[in-house]
């Protein structure tokens, strides 16, 4: 990516770095603005006052320290699901199944959080988090293996596996591991023990720092290790990778496993840091948001953090907006979808901004027949 190359060249010119940064950021920023403008039009059509709605949205997400903490808490699992999707993109894979992997992560972390007893706090939380991440990784191994060895396209298999994940986690939380305390009838697992909880520092959840750390690790893995080089090569050209002697099938599988590990960890952090148990429906949509976030963040680990904070803010402020301005929360989904549209249909935005397309930044995924 541009920023990293130029930083290697030293302080030759700060201006060049800035213009490179602008070139990277211009499209996502314009996409966000355009989406907000169209969102305002839609709000006006449905009879609401867009200015009041947006003011309430900002107040509910950045208005005070508590709101800001809520934004970061919402952004935390989103950073993970965004990283999961972006990581798979680097190998030319589209992991729409981050949702299912995240659900398994959330469930298994919850199970480890209430079943394992007698561990010291820090150790218990770490173990529960890793258990969730591993569950996500194992679940993602299925589409990885299928793609690598049979050519079944990961977009369809991961979406089908999302439905499988929803059904199985629902069954477990409503059957064998249902919370039976105090005559509970809702489908949910028992609450995790205090020792498994991931605490907050003031209003800011500790999980957020873990998410930032994960972004740095993903960046390091992708651009500073041999494995990362192989993953990116497979993503750019599987044929070239094969010709160079790389094990393409193995790399594809491993990429999906790591992607699932990240998604599972996102689910685990949500369980251990915020929800406190597994309850079906609590993590709905987080995996799909990962797609928007990965693309808004230009599939770069450091771009994902601000993108996730933006989407997290919309989620955090949505209830305030519903309460103060009487606007249905779902408008944030529409705005998000519009952001996704404009950031991917960047030719439209480029026409408005009058900038030229850059080479090498386009994402290409494989079609049906290729392996």
């Amino acid at each position, binding site marked *: 990516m541009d920023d990293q190359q130029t930083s290697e060249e030293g302080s030759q010119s700060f201006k060049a770095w800035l213009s490179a940064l602008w070139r990277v950021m211009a499209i996502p920023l314009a996409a966000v603005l355009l989406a907000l403008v169209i969102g305002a039009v839609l709000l006006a059509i449905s009879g609401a006052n867009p200015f009041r709605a947006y003011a309430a949205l900002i107040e509910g997400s950045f208005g005070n320290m508590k709101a800001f903490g809520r934004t970061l808490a919402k952004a935390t699992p989103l950073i993970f699901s965004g990283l999961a999707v972006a990581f798979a993109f680097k190998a030319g894979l589209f992991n729409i199944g981050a949702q299912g992997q995240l659900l398994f992560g959330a469930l298994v972390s919850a199970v480890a959080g209430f079943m394992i007893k007698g561990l010291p706090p820090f150790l218990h939380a770490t173990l529960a988090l890793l258990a969730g991440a591993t569950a996500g990784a194992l679940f993602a191994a299925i589409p990885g293996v299928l793609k690598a060895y049979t050519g*079944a396209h990961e977009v369809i298999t991961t979406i089908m596996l999302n439905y499988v994940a929803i059904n199985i986690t629902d069954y477990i939380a409503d059957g064998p591991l249902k919370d039976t305390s105090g005559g509970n009838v809702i489908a949910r697992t028992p609450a995790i023990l205090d020792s498994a909880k991931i605490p907050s520092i003031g209003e800011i959840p500790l999980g957020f720092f873990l998410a930032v750390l994960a972004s740095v690790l993903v960046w390091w893995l992708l651009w500073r290790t041999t494995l990362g080089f192989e993953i990116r090569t497979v993503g750019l050209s599987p044929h070239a990778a094969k010709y160079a002697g790389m094990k393409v099938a193995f790399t594809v599988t491993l990429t999906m496993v790591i992607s699932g590990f990240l998604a599972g960890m996102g689910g685990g952090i949500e369980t251990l840091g915020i929800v406190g148990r597994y309850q079906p429906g609590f993590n709905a949509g987080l995996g799909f948001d990962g797609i928007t976030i990965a693309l808004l963040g230009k599939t770069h680990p450091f771009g994902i953090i601000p993108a996730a904070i933006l989407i997290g803010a919309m989620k955090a402020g949505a209830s305030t907006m519903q309460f103060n301005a009487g606007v249905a929360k779902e408008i944030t989904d*529409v705005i998000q979808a519009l952001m996704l*549209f404009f950031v991917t249909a960047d030719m439209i935005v480029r026409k408005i901004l009058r900038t030229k397309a850059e080479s090498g930044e386009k994402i290409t995924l494989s*079609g049906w027949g290729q392996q």
Partner: protein
Amino acid sequence: MQTTTTLPAPVSPWKRFLKQWGMTLGIVLSVVVIIIWQYSLNENITEAVLASTIRQSTPLVLGALCGLLGERSAVINIGIEGQMLLGAFIGFLVNVWTGNLLLAVFAAIITGAIMGLLLAYMSVTLKMDQIIGGTVINILALGLTGYFYQVGLTTNGKLQPIPLGPLADIPIVGPALFNNPPITYATFVLVILVHYILFYTKWGLRTRAVGEHPRAADTLGINVFKVRYVNVIIGGAIAGLAGAFLTLEAVGSFERNMTNGRGFVALAVMIFGKFTPLGAWGAALLFGFASAMQTQLQFAGINVPHQFIGILPYVLTIVVLAGFVGRTHVPAADGVPYEKE
């Protein structure tokens, strides 16, 4: 790696036939055996299962037609789910506003066609990655329908079955095939029509040429962009019709995300059917049969948690994809934007 090419050993035509069609024949035979066996036990249940098979297969085969029109001209359509969902929603809304069913179906078709136009614009003109383009359509449809959806609305009536005279009284197949609502009949016609157009008309030949070798087609004066646009738009219209089937013929109301992954199952159906309308129809009937059996299992009171029965169609889709995608000929240029020289 050997570099010398050896001629394949001569294979008897019978063996080749078995290799190509053996599995399909086996599946068809076993399904027919199960149906006849069941019919001897209880004719009412059998007729219900067959009727339900047709009902379940209708949106799948329509979705598959949408998919294969695009793919035959080399545009991958992952957005069938979204086109269906938005078609279902707009059709539903128009019916609620006007009380007119025919107008509602028409609105659903137009909505699907507009979504098809959007996909064609993204993938043909903007040359975006087609899989991302389709995903954009899916997320957009989910967001828009979620925001404008109001709880508690129902349609003014539903499309009713029209029995085709004495045909509807034929045992076993009569009630399933000849006593259906209009969109189901339209589906039968569309399958045959699209098959005819694809394989027996000039337009179909052009479409397949554009899907296999766009450069050669262009050299012969075929407008690659136009062929892709038209096919993807017609495909979208068919997906819109599938949406209309869901709200106006099957259910009579709208729910959030009511397509429930059917658009993606349709893609598996398309691949299983080897990118041909008739093949897709057969595959859709198989999927429909699996879903119908699933409902019967639940009625029969077999003690399996409903979540496990609920995952069957999805698992079947994965198995089909894993087993068949490698053995099917995919249009050679599928998913590749065309650059004019």
